């Protein structure tokens, strides 16, 4: 590149944009919206450890991890769809069940390798159907994934006959499902590994970059030379593969599989993502936040069970939590705008 002599001359003319000093209170709200989840999670865990008997036991830590693992794996994957600005993938319900049933039913007959291949094929099909309809036809993601849920569950039930499938009690899968490293079950290690991998993909790869920038500004991303349709398919593919792994983990943990086993995973995963502070407007958010959201929701459920509080109250608490999380975010955005 040639040297830029004229620059110095012009520099003098250019005005530096004045930085507006932020008010303290506004900063407070923004800081809270940014980091609130860390504080909340820490406070919840600390107070539970102090006030709830048995919470801090090693066994209970294992239980919390068991609670968090499958839903967490779904949620960290679904974060990609949410960050791309497409609300959620309802069809994870069908995908998790499909993967679990395939894992046990197919591996019983043809071995693990064939099972994994078959499950990956299923994940790929889901991703392509969802991604093409949303990315190329610009159809609403909620309705598209709702219809693939119908079709997917219908197919699964038709093909599996609705039976419950068992793995051999001492098969590799069952051993993995029961295995622990200290108090940490292998499934939680999978969750941590998935979080790290997906955080890397989202923050450090070209693909993750386009997912984020698509969520912030679709048109600028397209004009930056991105095939935005492919980005959407990719986001759905990450979600589908995560749902597949969640299905494996779930199948390993219970060593059984049935088509109804993942009911409610769609909205539960989304709830964890929102509680973690990922914005449904797209762009803002991270996989790590989702992990925190999952931990927060799991710890909360765990504490409520330890206190022998009914299931109804747990659902109410989740609803209030979502409202609080988004309200703080909204107030912060408003403060930031002024």
């Amino acid at each position, binding site marked *: *590149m*040639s040297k*830029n002599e*004229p*620059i110095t001359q*012009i*520099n003098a*003319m*250019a*005005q*530096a*944009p004045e*930085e507006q000093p932020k008010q303290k209170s506004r900063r407070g709200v923004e800081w809270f919206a940014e980091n609130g989840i860390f504080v909340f999670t820490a406070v919840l865990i600390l107070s539970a450890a102090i006030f709830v008997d048995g919470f801090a036991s090693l066994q209970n830590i294992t239980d919390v991890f068991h609670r968090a693992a499958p839903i967490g794996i779904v949620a960290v994957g679904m974060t990609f769809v949410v960050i791309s600005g497409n609300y959620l993938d309802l069809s994870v319900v069908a995908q998790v069940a499909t993967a679990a049933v395939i894992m046990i039913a197919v591996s019983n007959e043809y071995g693990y390798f064939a099972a994994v291949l078959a499950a990956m094929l299923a994940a790929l099909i889901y991703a392509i159907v969802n991604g093409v309809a949303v990315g190329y036809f610009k159809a609403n993601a909620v309705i598209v994934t709702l219809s693939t849920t119908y079709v997917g569950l219908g197919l699964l039930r038709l093909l599996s006959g609705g039976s419950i499938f068992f793995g051999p009690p001492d098969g590799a899968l069952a051993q993995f499902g029961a295995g622990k490293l200290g108090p940490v079950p292998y499934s939680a290690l999978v969750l941590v590994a998935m979080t790290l991998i997906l955080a890397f993909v989202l*923050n*450090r*790869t*070209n*693909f993750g*970059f*386009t997912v*984020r*920038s698509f969520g*912030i*500004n679709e*048109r*600028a*991303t*397209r*004009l*930056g*030379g*991105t*095939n935005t349709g492919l980005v959407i398919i990719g986001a759905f593919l990450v979600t589908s593969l995560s749902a597949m792994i969640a299905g494996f983990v779930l199948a390993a943990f219970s060593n059984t599989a049935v088509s109804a086993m993942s009911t409610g995973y769609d909205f539960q995963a989304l709830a964890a993502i929102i509680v973690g502070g990922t914005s449904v407007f797209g*762009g*803002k958010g991270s996989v790590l936040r989702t992990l925190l959201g999952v931990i927060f929701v799991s710890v909360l459920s765990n504490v409520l069970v330890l206190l022998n509080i009914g299931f109804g109250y747990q659902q109410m608490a989740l609803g209030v939590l979502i409202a609080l999380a988004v309200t703080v975010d909204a107030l912060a955005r408003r403060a930031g705008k002024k």
Partner: protein
Amino acid sequence: MAAVVEAKNITKAFGGVKAVDDVTVSVEAGEIHAVVGENGAGKSTLMRILSGIEFPDSGQVMVEGKEIENSAKDSIDAGISLVHQELSLVPEMTVAENIYLGGFPTSAGFTKRKEMKKFAQETLDEIGVQVDIDERISRLSVALRQFVEIARAIARKPKVLILDEPTASLTPAETDYLLSMLERLAKQGLAIIYISHRIPEVFRLCHNVTILRDGKLVYVSEIKKTTPQEVINQMVGRELKLDLESRRDAKPGDVVLSAVGIKAPGVNDVDLEVRAGEIVGLGGLVGAGRTELIRAIIGADNKTAGNVHITVDGKRQQITSYMSAMRNGVAYVPEERRVDGLAMTMSVTDNVYLPNRKDLAASGVINPAKAAKVAKELADRVGLRPPEIKREAGQYSGGNQQKIVIAKWLHKRPSFVVLDEPTRGVDVGAKAEIHRLVKELADQGTAVLVVSSDLPELLELSDVIHVVRDGKIMGTLDGAKADEKQVMGLAAGEKLVEA
């Protein structure tokens, strides 16, 4: 006769730049008053102040001698009706409903449909537009929507009607009709403020003309006492402050871009060539079809016909989509940088990274250090201030944002660069830097296509100027010899002043 509406000593500044500077305009009943000026001369801002959408920093607006509060509602109540340049209709409601949007006649909450339709029909009859009042707006042509907008303004029984470039989207026949309609309305006692760049229209229609330039009022005259030539002179009117030394010696090479028979919405069968090392300027008025033309050429919008080829290193490639344009070294600096150009909540580095992913991270994994290094280099090269590449793009001023948009394309060493209004809303210093960058690119052998409504800019930069009107190239001028009047004359529909 007393003035119906009077704007006294209006001043309004945006971020230190005076968009309107001490302007006074007054219009009498039955008068059609033209307000003309180049793009960005301050006409639209003045009209927004008149209609209460913007508040002036100083000065006052009087209607029939009474000062009005500055709010949209007060303006409407006082009898000022603005026909927006951007359409503000609800697409899925009917014509009649849009005419009465927000003010349907009702009884006990129920819309009095018959009455509403009758009123709407009367209004449309009054302006002589035949359109099915039960039709939904989304199914109407842009021209029809424009007439519905006018009907909506008329339905408020205004004393003053302001029209901002009403003929931009109309065919000659429709324009013809609109003008005679306005004459009729004026004869009935309506005061009309007519904003347009189109000089023939102004001369056919208006009684008086006010000319704004750079926010200042420079000329007021009865139309009978002036000539089109004089009006154009006054619009352009500034001293030729073009520093001739700042013009470069163009040494055009081979044809890089060749577009043949391009048709698209708003573009009517255009051929265009740009050579290596050459800057081609597209002049013309807002709405002439320039943006549509370049977007169709590079595939950012769909075209309906035509071929585009790019020749790089002797290889001739067809451009079928924006992706293929990108692959062949096309760089596009869009007009709407907030919507199309930048991800405002991403850092400078990320914005620079966006189009350079393949190059900066061939393996697909981002190397933050490398990305930061490139971003830093580019920020220095375009003179970003402050050169903090971790800052969010949205926190920079307009000029610096535009520098980021340009910077992100420089790393790839593009073979063909398209810039759409590269210095709109940009301060003087940044403008000079951007001009320098554009020339530098051309000197390095890049083919450059610039769309600009800023005549001095167009003349300074371009080796060749095409003037676009109604989606067609109306004339081609040699950039070194052309002057502002020639460009404006072609753009506004006058014959070439000096052939």
